[in-house]
């Protein structure tokens, strides 16, 4: 399973974690 977990704090800070991706695919899929 490929997953992107994004935590957005109440001060607007964004933390992103990708799981199950290989190589540069995680960068491509997490472009927002």
């Amino acid at each position, binding site marked *: 399973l490929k997953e992107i977990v994004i935590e957005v704090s109440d001060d607007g800070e964004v*933390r992103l*974690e990708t799981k199950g991706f290989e190589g540069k695919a995680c960068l491509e899929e997490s472009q927002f």
Partner: protein
Amino acid sequence: LSHVSKIELEIKDLEALKAACQRLGFKFRKVKRPINGMVAGLETVHYLEGITEEELGKCDHAIHVPGAKYEIGIVKKGKSLSLLWDSWVKGGLEKHIGKDAGKLKQIYAVEKIRLEARKKGMKILESIKPKSIRLTLSI
């Protein structure tokens, strides 16, 4: 394999900002006149470098926050949108949008991510935590 990154938030998407306003119960409008507010003094005004005192309050769009006397201005600068607002306590904005507009930025980020995730056909799961909102996107 797992990768973790922190991202600097930049507001660029007007549709996501409108969606954030709707979710927060704020009214988004295109302005034909200067917005309400920004009279308390420059020490409480959150504005952009390069904007003169005369330009304050003259914005491309505005956000009306029910219960607040002042409004938030939106200024286009290149491809980015900047929020222009006055945190003077009697203007009432900070109570609704958080310190440094953190709450508004948070909901903008959530709506922008949801918009992009839908375009990519991802499954979206949202959960509210005490000080954050977590989005789990799966493919």
